[in-house]
């Protein structure tokens, strides 16, 4: 359960020289807030642990900025470790973890499409879900004023 995973994650982070704010919400969920500059190192430390699986990342716009939650599953311990990064910058820029976790590049492309998050050192930050003629700079999952522009028709 969470105790074993908590110890594992804490010692892995300590070995990598990182500090993190760790919260055990319940025996099956651990949340961890980190500084965005430590993101790649943290992902490397956690993804190197035995039995870990990258589940997915959830990006969102909160009231004050942008947040990404990376979900790592520890299947044999019945526990999910969720790594949270937050930025107030606009445009929001994070480091891409795809050099560590190959599977993350696709969800990073999705977050780039839907929320306008930028990922440094991404191998190809292209559109994944939105159509090619979708206007630049319009992000469906962002809050605020709806976009009122017009799309140029192409046949």
């Amino acid at each position, binding site marked *: 359960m969470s105790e074993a995973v908590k110890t594992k994650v804490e010692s892995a982070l300590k070995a990598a020289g990182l500090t993190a704010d760790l919260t055990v919400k319940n025996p099956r969920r651990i949340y961890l807030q980190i500084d965005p500059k430590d993101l790649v190192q943290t992902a490397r430390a956690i993804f190197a642990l035995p039995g870990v699986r990258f589940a*997915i990342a959830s990006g*969102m716009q909160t009231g004050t900025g942008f947040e990404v939650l990376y979900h790592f599953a520890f*299947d044999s311990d019945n526990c999910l470790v969720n790594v949270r990064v937050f930025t107030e910058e606009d445009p929001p820029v994070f480091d891409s973890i795809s050099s560590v976790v190959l599977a993350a590049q696709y969800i990073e492309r999705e977050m780039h499409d839907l929320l306008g998050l930028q990922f440094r050192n991404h191998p190809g930050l292209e559109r994944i*879900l939105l159509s090619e003629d979708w206007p630049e700079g319009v992000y*469906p999952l962002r809050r605020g004023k709806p976009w009122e522009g017009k799309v140029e028709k192409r046949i």
Partner: protein
Amino acid sequence: MSAVVPIGPFHPLQEEPELFRLHVDGETVTDIEVEIGWNHRGIEKISEGKTFDQVTYVIERICGICSTSHPIAYVQAVEDIGGVEVPERALYIRSIIGELERIHSHLLWVGLAGHFLGYNTVFMWAWKYREPLLDICEFLTGNRNHYAMMKPGGVRRDIPAEKIPQVYKMLDEMVPKLQMLAGAIIDDPVLHARLKGVGVLSKEDCRAYGALGPTSRSSGVPGDIRRDHPYAAYGLVDWNVVTQEAGDAYSKGVVRVLECFESIKIIRGCLERLKELPEGPEYIDAKITDVPPGEGIGHHEAPRGETFHYVRSDGRNRPIRHKVRAPTFMNLWTCKATIIGESITDAVIVLAAIDPCYCCTERMGVFDADSGKRLYDGRDLIRLSHERTRAVRKELGV
């Protein structure tokens, strides 16, 4: 000579839109590009405008095959926010519906795989045997698909004691048919020659791509959310995780066929317990009145792998963020590892072997770019279909 072979986005071999560009050198596939997004429906955004109860119905419509997987994952995410205890009877009912769905989904895949390979008899058998299952789904829930059984805190409908014998009867009749189908597939020399060693996915690639469900279990990775993160009644009944070691298209098929038997075991175990538990509306629903501020995660082992839902609440009656990740979003990319180096003739079955469920992964209506008006809706399509039927009748003179 190298060339590019596009499959899709609309192709008679695919039931749903997806674009694969196969780069081939002679007959060997050298690279593959996958383009998704042909069916983006904006469900995550729609979710933010619905109440917690309404979202269950919206996300049930994400997928037409594994329609209950998304609600099971979602209701668990909502329950995870406030730490709600779900009544035991509801847990068993959730598992029964989840497993009925798994069998019909796997049979559907077996049929399609047979069809892709030119085994149309397998296609006919598998889909014929699937029919009584769908009838039982209708008998229990009122619908062959889109059961609308889940709700945050429990289930919407009970399975009363008088309905249980008919489910047993269906399962008893199903087993010999499945055994016959399994035997025909597992022992068929032509299928062995055609599928063994084709599209092999290694354990390392499973980990790198985050492969899920039967796709990873056929590569010897024993991951199954039902056993690893027990939820519903999966930790309360006896069953086994099916794994295979080879990681080829054949193993993926075998895992799915054998899993049907485990699902039957789970359903029987759950039905046994249902008979002992008290019946009544108060035993199937925890009656959630509000969702506190916070965040929650729910996941369910759908027929194709783990369905993952993340829900955040700010204390009002609707989610402020709802992230949906379908298993195919992870599994689809493994084709980069499996298809390169294979012959173009095997491409279809290798792509089909992960059982891609596009409607889950894709999330697009046809809109006019100038006016923003929807060009086609369901009624238009039916009208077009009727017109076409009339034109054909006229042509044939009937």
